[in-house]
């Protein structure tokens, strides 16, 4: 390692910490989110430095991009509601840090506000101790450890793909990924099970956004397809491709596009679950010839992984875009709507 590299890594580490701190401490929530997105982008840089381009892609697309979009749209909705109830104050510009923590103390139930400083100092002290202990534990680890790199390398040629990360995700530890797809679906089910929020896209998207989406969406679709295809041998894969697909969806949603009602019922549900459905079916089919659950035979592994990933990409993309949209689509005709009149929740 050259000195320059050390300096770069050191600087990156410090900047990350500084950005994280600014994100958390900034008085303005909007600014906090923007800083968080910047933090995510710098994280991708760190992943590149750590030789993890797959994660860098995932972090940039999901960690910074989509999470950022989710946060921003949530903040916007928070403010709309605030405007409706008449206290914009408390949301955007609120909360200089000390005032905020005073509230926390009240929330934690520590009682009167002049006690909170003591609590804060105590917490800082405790957490510093924790951090120091953890740092000691990390530093005590031996400086060289192969991990599972050899096992992965030895089995890579029978995994059906040549990108080791994809091999681990879809083959060696495919079961984790199966459950992870379930988590993603679960998030959507959870969001849909909540009451609908009032529709808030009142403003027309404007010409620029409209043009931009016309230009970008086809490009994003291409990129998604490419990432999916290339994932078997180079950085990329279903999650990265899926999130790029979701980005296209988000852009369209922002531009005011809404899918026709007839696509929102069954077709939408189908698209949401196809990833998991294909994954589970493949997993089970592999048991027919006497194999274990999810045991992909080397000869077909490549093709099967591509099949799973294609379905997964579609589902991930649609799910993430639907999460961005935020609530159950209105035109869904499943059982009589129960949402009472606005304020009253059942």
């Amino acid at each position, binding site marked *: 390692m050259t000195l320059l590299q050390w300096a770069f890594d050191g600087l990156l580490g410090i900047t990350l910490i500084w950005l994280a701190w600014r994100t958390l401490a900034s008085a303005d929530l909007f600014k906090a989110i923007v800083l968080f997105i910047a933090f995510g982008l710098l994280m991708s840089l760190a992943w590149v430095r750590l030789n993890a381009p797959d994660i860098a892609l995932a972090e940039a697309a999901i960690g910074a991009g989509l999470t950022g979009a989710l946060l921003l749209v949530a903040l916007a909705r928070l403010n709309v509601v605030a405007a409706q109830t008449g206290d914009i104050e408390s949301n955007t510009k609120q909360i200089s840090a000390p005032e905020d923590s005073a509230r926390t103390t009240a929330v934690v139930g520590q009682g009167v506000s002049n006690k909170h400083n003591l609590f804060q100092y105590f917490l800082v002290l405790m957490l510093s101790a924790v951090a120091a*202990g*953890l740092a*000691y*534990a*990390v530093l*005590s*680890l031996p400086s060289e*450890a*192969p*991990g*599972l790199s050899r*096992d*992965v390398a030895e*089995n890579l040629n029978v995994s059906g793909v040549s990108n080791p990360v994809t091999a681990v995700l879809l*083959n*060696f*530890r*495919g*079961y*984790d990924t199966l*459950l*992870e797809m*379930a*988590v993603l*679906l*679960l*998030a959507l*089910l*959870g969001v*849909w*099970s*909540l*009451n609908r929020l009032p529709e808030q896209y009142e403003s027309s998207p404007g010409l620029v956004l409209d043009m931009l989406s016309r230009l970008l969406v086809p490009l994003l679709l291409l990129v998604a397809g490419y990432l999916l295809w290339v994932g078997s041998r180079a950085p990329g894969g279903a999650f990265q491709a899926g999130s790029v697909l979701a980005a296209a969806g988000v852009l369209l949603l922002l531009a005011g596009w809404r899918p026709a009602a007839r696509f929102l019922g*069954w077709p939408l*549900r*189908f698209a*949401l*679950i196809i990833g*998991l*459905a294909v994954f*589970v079916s493949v*997993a*089970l089919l592999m048991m027919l010839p006497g*194999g*274990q*659950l*999810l*045991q*992909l035979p080397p000869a077909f592994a490549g093709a099967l992984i591509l099949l799973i990933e294609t379905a997964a990409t579609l589902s991930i993309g649609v799910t993430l875009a639907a999460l961005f949209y935020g609530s159950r689509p209105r035109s869904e005709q*499943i*059982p*009589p*709507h*129960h949402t009472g009149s606005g304020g009253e*929740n*059942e």
Partner: protein
Amino acid sequence: MLIVLPLIGTLLCFLLPRQVKALGLMTALAIAASAVALLWQLLQQGAMRYSVGGWGAPLGIDLYADGLSLLMLLITATVGLAISIYANAAFKLDKLVHFWPLWLLLWTALNALFLSADLFNLYVSLELLGLSAVALVALAGGSAALGAAMRYLLVSLLGSMLYLLGLALLYHSFASVDIAILAQRMESTPAVWAAMALMTVGLLLKTALFPLHFWLPPAHANAPAAVSALLSALVVKGSFYILLRLWLEVFPLSHAAPGQLLGLLGAAAILWGGVQALRQTRLKMLIAYSTVSQLGYLFIAFPLATTMAWKGAMYLLLSHALAKSAMFLAAGNLLLFGGHDRITQLDRVAQRLPLTLAAFALAGVSIIGLPISGGFIGKWLLLTAAMQSGEWGWAVVMILGSLLAAAYIFKVIGYAFTQAEVTHEACEVSKTMGATAFVLALAAIVLGLIAPWLLALMDIAEPFAMSSAALNAGAAA
């Protein structure tokens, strides 16, 4: 397969929302049947290890089933089936379309969790479990439930983060996240101690051991009854199960001081939870605090760390799952019936809902630990274990806890027989709902009668023997 079945059920329920009732129930029956099939297999051939994808640990993920996981799966199937039936009767269709997919995902998570031998896989299962539980709490709607769900979500995520950080340390120490391999390679290093501390705290947070229990009462009390029952009976047990596995197999070197600490926290939980329960004015809050108290008992086994103590804790866990779910369902019936769950205004429900009240009383018998109930066997084993080790302190706390439990249970039953000042219009409660609660409570009692058989099941692959062997070795050295 126990994991794939509920997953398929979820997908079907999501695709065909109109048929959720039938589809869900069919899935529930199928899961229960396959749990029984697993029991049969284990009885035939002892513990089973299964390599998903055929790779085997450390590269792949292994599943592992022994007596401990089997019992957890069986109890999940029993309680799950009962709650499925109850939910179909209690929720309207517009809730059911959301309830079923979420509940089946939760079931997936529980089954995955009890079968997995891989710590990272357990992390994913834990997240699946936590998020589905949160979504189910939020199903109740209203600001109290939403707030409770939000708090629960944050706590759950924090717990997972702590767990994951500990897991990272373990992986980088031993190049594996498989429980069996870690157990072989285990040695006492700073990284291992840090990992143990992180993972234990993370899991305790999710298991709501005193003083990390603050999130539990609001979450369990504000959820719909069927969900409360699930949470108290099964979900908190999920993280406890991982904790048990970790302490029994991965960190057997650590029974002395940390075990004492867990025991002390457990004792504090028993007393604090009991006292708080007694002070509550709302029935569901009372039951929720009772859960805090009963969870404390499970941790008394950690300082004792003998086979008998572990079995006692396990027995208590099983009977608590049955009794507490019965109690929450009964409370749900009372809530529906009277429109409120204020204890002092229960107004002679004894005559109006005899089955529900009987369920509550029977469940109470097991919670208090009166003879022939499952709770009695569990407490008896724990008490005996404490006496044998000559540690009287634990025994005293346990008995005090039972007295507190008796006090708060009788408080409720007393009000149920007296006439309240406020009479209210009664809502109809379907027979199914009373009956399911009653069956669960009855099962908690029956658990006391089949003790020899259950204790034999626990011995499949002797999950509890290892630690005491290690302890004896330590004592001999």
